[in-house]
């Protein structure tokens, strides 16, 4: 069953047609990846799904509910959480306070202490630095914080926009392992990546986005063996 479904989604920036009517879906329990070159429209897709960018036409269906016009701040409560491109953690707040903001949507939060311990367990580095101002974290630590923050609201679906950006190969592997772990524990994942190889290796299905249109879709493992994909995105 599709947890998230995007239908004929069109987004413009002024005269620039960033998304020219794309269709895709994410089933419950899956990891689906959206790959594509710079400027293909991946971030635009992620941000329009979550309501940060106005949609020109088309629909976003989540859990059988049309959320096309639902304001961004209400989607967290419905179980959607996004780690945006560039992390966008709150630089002036401490690590702990950033995590607190992640749980903002839960009013009477009885599980807050357990949730934060769960995040600290997953990212022990954050626990050591819980009172540190976020702007002084390293890039890798900031990515961990961004992911931890997104997990604080118990999402049903996690939207990740280039979690590997600017990280060392070792850390990329670590982050991807964690994404798989999170998925195994029951969170559906929509993953946008430049690092197509890594993304395809953990995904169930994949979509290829090229200048605002989806040009290819299919099983992630099969796609890894597709010659066109190999040439264009895997550098082989």
């Amino acid at each position, binding site marked *: 069953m599709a947890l998230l479904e995007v239908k004929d989604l069109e987004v413009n920036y002024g005269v620039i047609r960033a998304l020219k009517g794309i269709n895709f879906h994410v089933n419950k329990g899956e990891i689906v990846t959206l790959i594509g070159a710079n400027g293909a429209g991946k971030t635009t897709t992620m941000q329009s799904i979550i309501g940060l960018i106005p949609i020109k036409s088309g629909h976003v269906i989540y859990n059988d509910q049309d959320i096309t016009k639902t304001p*961004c*701040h209400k989607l967290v409560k419905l179980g959607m959480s996004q780690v*945006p491109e*560039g992390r*966008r953690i709150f630089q002036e707040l401490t690590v702990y306070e950033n995590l607190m*903001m992640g749980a903002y949507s839960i009013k009477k939060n009885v599980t807050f202490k357990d949730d934060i311990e769960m995040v600290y367990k997953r990212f022990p580095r954050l626990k050591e630095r819980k009172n540190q101002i976020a702007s002084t974290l390293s890039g890798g630590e900031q990515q961990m914080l961004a992911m931890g923050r997104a997990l604080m609201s118990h999402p049903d679906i996690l939207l990740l926009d280039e979690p590997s950006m600017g990280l060392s190969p070792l850390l990329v592997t670590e982050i991807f392992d964690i994404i798989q772990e999170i998925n195994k524990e029951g969170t559906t994942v929509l993953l946008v990546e430049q690092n197509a190889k890594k993304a395809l290796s953990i995904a169930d299905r994949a979509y290829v986005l090229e200048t605002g249109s989806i040009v290819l879709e299919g099983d992630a493992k099969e796609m890894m063996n597709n010659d066109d994909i190999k040439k264009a995105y895997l550098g082989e």
Partner: protein
Amino acid sequence: MEILETLINGLSIGGTYAMIALGYTMVYGIAKMLNFAHGDVIMVGGYTIYVVMAQTGYPLIGLAAAILFCMILGVTVEKLAYKPLRGASPLAVLITAIGVSYLLQSTAQMIFGSSPKMVTLLDLGNVKLGSLKIQWNVIITLIASFVIMLILTLFVKYTRTGRAMVAVSEDKGAAQLMGINSNAIITLTFAIGSALAACAGFFMLMKSPSLSNTMGAMPGIKAFTAAVIGGIGSIPGAMLGGILIGIVEAVSYKITVIAPYTDAIEFLILIIILLVKPSGILGKKRREKV
């Protein structure tokens, strides 16, 4: 002793400026706009106090009414005039704010006429401590404004909503991803700023009882100067800037030769500080978003 007296006076004037500067800086930090009409909220607070005092005779009821009325006014102006312009060019927003400022001043003039009104709030006389002689209203203003600043600081630093305000001021989009309703936070900011302006109006009337439709203009500009000196967008910066301007004003009034040039001196300090540190004393350079 005279130095101490001047200092206490300066802190008291500075406390009032800080109240106003906080409104500028918080609105700037969170809604990213310069609310040029903020000074006039002080005046609206003043007239509210005048009207309620005439009915009831109790200054504190006047203050409470002024706080309430100014909060409603601030939030309404934001909803009607500024919210539709979110995302518009900063110049359009600034011109709208100037329009709101004139609207408030003209409305007050229509209702209350152009001759100043007199409001005597509390006449408590002086405190004498040894050779020290200070007016009670100076002390009350000083204590009240510092208590308010302390409460505001604690609120922003230690409450969920306060932290959400910082989050919205830093990155509205990311804050929305957390489930923070940024529009509600902006509304709250206008409400707090306007309440502080009402308090400033009360302090100003305690100091000098004359009330006119332009009474908010000059303190507004000076408090804006204070906010810029401290680093616009920074809450501690607005407090520091306000206190600094207050002390400069008190000292300058004491020195006969330069007393007439007090306003000019204050703006001169602004220029010097901006030349040395363009982002203000406690201001930080905004990181560009990726």
